[in-house]
């Protein structure tokens, strides 16, 4: 299978060097230059990148910062900052809007949002065709896992019936123009011959030939059989239904078996779309049928008549793109309403077709328009749809395989970087508006069924229904929709139930526990059960999860999976192996999540019902389905207090390196902190200010310098001999702060002359040697669990000839256990002796140095 995720540095560099600013616009240019965050601090919000729809603009889709009804300002109100956590991708300048060529722009936007916000992941919110662009990016080699949520509002994931019809109308107009200007492609009707497909020399030629040579005469046969000579009930039958019933071989050859890969063999996912490369022969046959019928009606009795709502009158050329788009959209709706198509001249039609191309970049050969043709088209209401857009079908299937990890599972991995999909659609237009009739429930442009990407296990699919609104363009205006999208972005996993600690074990008691419950599971939205980190308490052990359902709906399966989440990032996804549903609909399975023990571990258990989403009837049936699923959670510790091996040690996001003690740590000194005044260093080590110097000259003499001061001077007259002079600095409680000593040697007297008194001066005190005591340990911790700390005494900056660390309190390694939450200072003290060789003697200094770190301690005993 084609490797999709090979990312080369050169590729990325090339894209990035293409310029970020050129493709990113801010709704408010005045703030374009601001908002660069402190590089050391991630932004509060995960950034959101907005991707507008086809024939639209960022402002037109999302509104501006000052438009209070717009989605853009709504997000600003929720704390998103333009240029920091809120971005737009603009692809209006693209000549054809083809997402296959435009997805690198989204990649650049993701890179910029990451750089500015400081987050590794971003959320992408799209409207209409913007979703195809985003999906293409996610499936592309450029994608490196940077998207957390991909929110798709009204996405034409399987094409748009509106685009299908519009394109059919345009190609019909073009074909008619061709027919009017050239000799009609008249010839003997095949009368039902089905095997003489003409050579494919382009879709216009193919459609024209099939219409003229095959479907037009066939339509006459249909009229004669069903309306004139045939049975009395014949008029209820359509051309397509008659074809499928009376000429099954034609239907089989032209539609069923023509749902083949496109005509040219070099088709590939990344290849540019074009005639014969992306749409199946069945699609062209469908166009030929439509044109053939129109030709019959046109030349066999009716005056020329085609998509008159589009082509009869020229849309007002106000120059305002938005207004013209509205006008155009309205006419498209009238077109689908099919109220009336009055006859216009070919000249007029061609002129309007040209207008569409020049003003809206819409033409029949537009790659974007081709790629949004429905994946399937319905030839007859009595028969199954046939494949039309082979490109879309293949791409969707390939992407789904990646999301489900099918390809990767073959090599033992999965794609944890795949984003979560949220598909949001509007519905009920079809039931209430005349132009919606004839297609399945839709929002005026996209059928609900077509919005759905083949669902992955953690996809969300929400349909908002109304009389006529929210429709395709109005979906974003719905306050309910906006709130829902924002809530999804802010919560990431909508959790149905959270298991906080409900037990009453005393803190520090190594525990095992179990819980059980039941949750209603649907095929539309995954249900998540969270086992919160405060429930797991960072204990080493494993969580055993049992899932069972006694009565799954028919033809539906159950899927369950587990995320082990640390901090705000997803670490690992594991599938729960479930038995296939029995005849009674019973299914179940078990998974054991081992290796828990990091403080911020939490576990998310996800469920959803699975089933086929192929027909509208199935969609409707599944929509109302909810099945109860039982689950049981049980935690089993893997060790005893202080012996919990296998842990990663430090809590996630912690600067500290020490953490849960490993085996053998029992011997370490442990300090239980019950009161906030608890000190970690014995009182004798916590010294005060220098209060007095005590001098000892070594010959029985001495004195006290009550200075007080950091320095003390003394002089003494020695008799000949060897002496050791000591000076001690004491604090007010008599504890030694500093001790210095000198060696004094006084030579004996010479006989010729009496020895003069030998007076020696001393200076004690002064600058302290640069000795550092560093305490390392966790910056955040919880009550009841031992935290390990280490003490390092650094004397490297001291130029002494002798360095001796006499003692360290409470120890070079020690444990702390807090029994109550709060912010605490953890202090360590080291007594160090330094020796200096100086002219005239050796000076030895003994002094106590301290170091400290601050720890925030949280309580675990929170209950709901």
């Amino acid at each position, binding site marked *: 299978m084609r490797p999709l995720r090979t990312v080369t540095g050169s590729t990325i560099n090339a894209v990035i060097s293409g310029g970020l600013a050129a493709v990113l616009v801010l709704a408010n240019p005045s703030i374009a230059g601001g908002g660069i965050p402190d590089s050391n601090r991630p932004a509060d919000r995960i950034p959101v990148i907005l991707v507008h729809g086809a024939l639209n603009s960022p402002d037109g889709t999302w509104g501006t910062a000052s438009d209070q009804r717009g989605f853009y300002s709504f997000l600003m109100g929720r704390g998103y900052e333009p240029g920091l956590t809120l971005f737009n991708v603009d692809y209006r300048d693209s000549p054809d809007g083809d997402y296959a060529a435009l997805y690198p722009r989204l990649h650049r936007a993701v890179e910029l949002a990451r750089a500015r916000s400081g987050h590794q992941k971003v959320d992408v919110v799209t409207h209409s065709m913007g979703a195809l662009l985003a999906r293409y990016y996610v499936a592309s080699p450029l994608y490196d896992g940077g998207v957390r949520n991909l929110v798709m509002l009204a996405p034409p994931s399987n094409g748009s019936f509106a685009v299908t019809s519009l394109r059919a109308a345009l190609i019909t107009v073009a074909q008619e123009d061709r027919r009017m200007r050239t000799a009609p492609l008249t010839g003997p009707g095949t009368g039902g011959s089905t095997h003489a497909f003409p050579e494919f020399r382009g879709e216009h030629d193919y459609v024209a030939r099939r219409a003229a040579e095959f479907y037009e005469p066939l339509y006459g046969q249909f009229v004669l059989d069903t309306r004139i000579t045939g049975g*009395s009930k014949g008029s209820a039958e359509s051309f397509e239904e008659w074809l499928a019933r009376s000429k099954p071989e034609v239907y089989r050859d032209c539609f069923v078996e023509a749902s083949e890969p496109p005509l040219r063999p070099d088709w590939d996912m990344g290849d540019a779309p074009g005639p014969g490369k992306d749409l199946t022969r069945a699609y062209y046959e469908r166009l030929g049928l439509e044109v053939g019928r129109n030709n019959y*009606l046109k030349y*066999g009795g009716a005056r020329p008549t085609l998509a008159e709502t589009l082509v*009869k009158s020229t849309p007002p050329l106000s120059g305002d793109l938005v207004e013209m788009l509205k006008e155009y959209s309205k006419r498209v709706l009238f*077109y689908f309403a*099919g109220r*009336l*198509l009055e006859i216009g001249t070919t000249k007029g039609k061609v002129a309007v077709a040209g207008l569409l191309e020049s003003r809206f970049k819409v033409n029949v050969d537009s790659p974007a328009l081709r790629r949004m043709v429905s994946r399937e088209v319905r030839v007859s209401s009595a028969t199954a749809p046939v494949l039309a857009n082979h490109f879309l079908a293949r791409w969707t299937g390939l992407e789904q395989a990646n999301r489900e990890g099918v390809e990767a599972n073959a090599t033992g991995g999965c794609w944890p970087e795949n984003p979560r999909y949220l598909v949001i659609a509007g519905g009920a237009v079809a039931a209430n508006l005349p132009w919606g009739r*004839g297609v399945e429930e839709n929002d005026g442009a996209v059928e609900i069924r077509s919005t759905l990407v083949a669902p992955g296990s953690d996809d969300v699919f929400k349909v908002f229904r109304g009389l006529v609104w929210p429709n395709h363009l109005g979906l974003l205006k719905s306050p309910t929709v906006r709130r829902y999208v924002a809530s999804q972005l802010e919560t990431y996993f909508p959790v149905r139930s959270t298991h906080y600690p409900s037990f009453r074990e005393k803190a520090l008691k190594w525990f095992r526990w179990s819980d059980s419950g039941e949750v209603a599971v649907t095929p539309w939205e995954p249900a998540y059960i969270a086992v919160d980190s405060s429930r797991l308490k960072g204990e080493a052990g494993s969580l055993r999860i049992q899932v069972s359902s006694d009565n799954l709906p028919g033809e539906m399966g159950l899927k369950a999976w587990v995320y082990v989440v640390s901090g705000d990032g997803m670490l690992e996804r594991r599938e729960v192996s479930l038995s296939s549903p029995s005849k009674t609909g019973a299914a179940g399975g078990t998974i054991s999540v081992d290796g828990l023990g990091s403080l911020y571990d939490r576990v998310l258990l996800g469920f959803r019902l699975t089933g086929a989403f192929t027909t509208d009837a199935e969609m409707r049936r599944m929509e109302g389905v909810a099945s109860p699923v039982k689950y049981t959670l049980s935690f089993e510790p893997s060790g005893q207090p202080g012996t919990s091996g296998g842990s990663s040690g430090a809590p996630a996001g912690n600067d500290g390196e020490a953490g849960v003690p490993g085996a053998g740590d029992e011997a370490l000194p442990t300090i239980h902190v019950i009161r906030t005044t608890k000190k970690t260093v014995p009182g004798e080590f916590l010294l005060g200010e220098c209060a007095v110097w005590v001098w000892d000259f070594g010959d029985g003499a001495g004195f006290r310098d009550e200075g007080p001061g950091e320095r003390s001077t003394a002089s003494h007259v020695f008799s000949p001999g060897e002496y050791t002079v000591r000076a001690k600095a004491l604090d007010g409680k008599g504890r030694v702060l500093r001790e210095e000593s000198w060696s004094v040697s006084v030579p004996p007297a010479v006989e010729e002359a009496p020895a003069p008194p030998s007076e020696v001066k001393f200076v004690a005190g002064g600058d302290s040697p640069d000795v550092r005591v560093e305490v390392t340990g966790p910056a955040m911790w919880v009550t009841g669990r031992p935290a390990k700390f280490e003490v390092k005494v650094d004397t490297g900056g001291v130029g002494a000839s002798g360095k001796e660390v006499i003692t360290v309190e409470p120890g070079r390694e020690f444990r702390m256990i807090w029994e109550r939450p709060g912010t605490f200072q953890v202090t360590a003290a080291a007594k160090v002796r330094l020796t200096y060789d100086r002219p005239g003697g050796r000076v030895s200094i003994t002094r106590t140095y301290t170091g400290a770190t601050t720890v925030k301690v949280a309580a675990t005993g929170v209950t709901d």
Partner: protein
Amino acid sequence: MYASIGIIACIAGVGGCFAFSMFWGGSNRYSLLTVLETNTKGLIAIPLEGDCPRAARWEEQSRTLVPLKTEYAPDRRTKCLVVYDVDFAGVRVSSDARKIPSFPYRIDLGVPISVIAQADPPGDAPEADAVIGVPVPVCDNRLRLFTGELSLDRISSDGVATLSLDGEDITVAPGQAWTVARIREGSSTAEIRPGPGWEAALTKAFENGSPISRLTIINYGLWEKERVEKCGY
């Protein structure tokens, strides 16, 4: 004596109520008929959606009627429901449902057919052109060859429908159909009835490009008013 008068008055009252209810209250059943007019020529505009929606559809097995609009559903007074469709070259351009409370009831086959283009959405400026929001003919009514009156004269208690077309009496029993075709050749119009030569004559006229119209009446019999889905479709 007063008692006798009271009894007589009571009987008269009950009888009157019964007669009133029989006359005004109607039955819980109605007769379902369809009138299909098909034409080969004369279409000048096509409803783009294809056929215009049928006024009602029905499930013959369950004998359930699904009207397009709730006002098409037979009400308490409806004795017969006629679904009248007009078709040009395989394209249904008109469909109507007539609720008939009393007989005779006349259907004017010559009423020109036009389509009211979709009105603008409320609040929007009206269209400048003449297409949207105004009646527009969709067919050349001169090429519809049935232009007289179709009279529905009565429905018997067993559901047999008695009609008349241009003075000709027509009887259609439940489950049966009646049909006739007309061909215009030059300035004259010929009438073709089912029988030997029916298919050959019509096929020849069709291939010659002659305008053909056919009228078909189908009697679906008596249906229960309870079996009507009033939600529309």
